[in-house]
């Protein structure tokens, strides 16, 4: 029913490459900050932070965003997801923000995240890093850094598992359980 798209080594290589791309594009780690979207985006952002700090030997600001309050489907029939804390304890002014999420799909989460971010200040730029881009965008949003592009049928479900939450690192694709 489910097949593996990326294994532990694949994920680790993708994180390394994205870290280098972020540094290349922003000419180093100065003025960049990583912001992860709950839940799996936070893990991705923490791994990128660790990698970037290892490469450049500097500290990089890190924040956590819960986009629940900015969703466009809160009243529209789904159960409310549990609201968790947003934690952005640095100023956004003058910063290049790397927004991190595990899977990019319709783009609606990213729209909500950008809105949420703008309520905290005016960053110099917002860039998007995702581990998986599975297509099917419903909004004009594109990623700046991609671990892997995976064309999928809309009915499939792509799931990123991280050691920190799930006990193992892998990306799987499965039929929607109906």
């Amino acid at each position: 029913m489910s097949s593996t798209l990326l294994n532990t080594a694949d994920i680790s290589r993708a994180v390394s490459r994205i870290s280098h791309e972020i540094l290349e594009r922003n000419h180093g780690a100065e003025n960049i900050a990583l912001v992860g979207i709950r839940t799996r985006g936070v893990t991705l952002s923490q791994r990128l932070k660790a990698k970037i700090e290892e490469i450049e030997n500097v500290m990089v600001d890190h924040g956590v965003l819960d986009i629940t309050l900015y969703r466009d489907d809160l009243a529209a029939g789904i159960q409310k997801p549990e609201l968790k804390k947003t934690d952005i304890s640095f100023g956004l002014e003058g910063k290049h923000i790397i927004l991190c999420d595990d899977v990019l799909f319709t783009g609606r989460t990213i729209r909500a995240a950008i809105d949420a971010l703008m309520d905290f200040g005016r960053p110099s730029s917002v860039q998007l890093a995702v581990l998986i881009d599975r297509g099917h965008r419903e909004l004009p949003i594109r990623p700046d850094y991609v671990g892997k592009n995976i064309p999928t049928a809309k009915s499939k479900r792509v799931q990123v598992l991280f050691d920190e939450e799930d006990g193992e690192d892998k990306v799987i694709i499965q039929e929607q359980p109906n």
Partner: protein
Amino acid sequence: MLLSTKSILSTKELTKLDIQQILDTAESFKEISTRAIKKVPTLRGKTIINLFFEPSTRTRTSFEIAGKRLSADVINISGSTSSTVKGENLIDTARNLEAMNPDILVVRHQCSGAPALLSQFVNSPIINAGDGSHEHPSQALLDLLTIRSHRGDLEGLKVAIVGDISHSRVARSNIKAMQTMGMKVRVVGPPPLIPVGLERLGVEVSHNLIEAIKDVDVVMILRIQLERQNQGLLSSLREYSNYFCLTSEALAKARDDVLIIHPGPVNRGVEIALDVMEGPRSLILNQVTNGVAIRMALFYLLLGENNANPN
């Protein structure tokens, strides 16, 4: 992830899970009030009506700010400016307001049971913001949030509630909610101000302030409600103060880490001494801050799909 009740009329009908969920959600909402831009778009397009038939600064402002920080439209109606002065009755007022499709009604009324009565005639969820000497559930919830953020867990904590228990809707809401959360409640005050038979509800009764606060985690001081003291239950305020005012001498007998809360407004020097009220153990202003977060959580949770206005 939804509450077991459509309206918040009393703490009696809230389960332990409901209360936990409200406190957890409120905990997440606290952060919004510390931002430079204190607003999220969550309840954009929702309408909240504050219907207050009794004077209030704290509670009404708190509900209004909570609604506005979630981007809802908040309308305030107070008793003296409503059509009730023209003789319209409460139910007709509420039905007319409902004809304008609000999403939540927040009601404060001098008569016990008024919000519960209204809930039978209107479809919108109702939040009881204080009814007579019956209940004030959002106050109890913000008290629990304040205690929990200082103690981590509510289970097993001991609380002494001091003052006019008979007339206090805050005490009534708190006793039930605290018992639901596994806390032990003791009430303290002169015999005429303590309802008969409270022991049967598992509440300890004491008439000695010093004895009663010795071993507790939290002391909750109630306001002596001057507007309800014309029944001759107290011989004088001064006598009450002599025995039940929380002074620094009395506080010295309590635990070093005791928390002091008071629902406000405070009669300085009557139920609590000035230095205690402004001292390091007092969380009175902290409660007010938490009140906004609790009311945001209630709005957020009540406006869920299953609770949507069926109109």
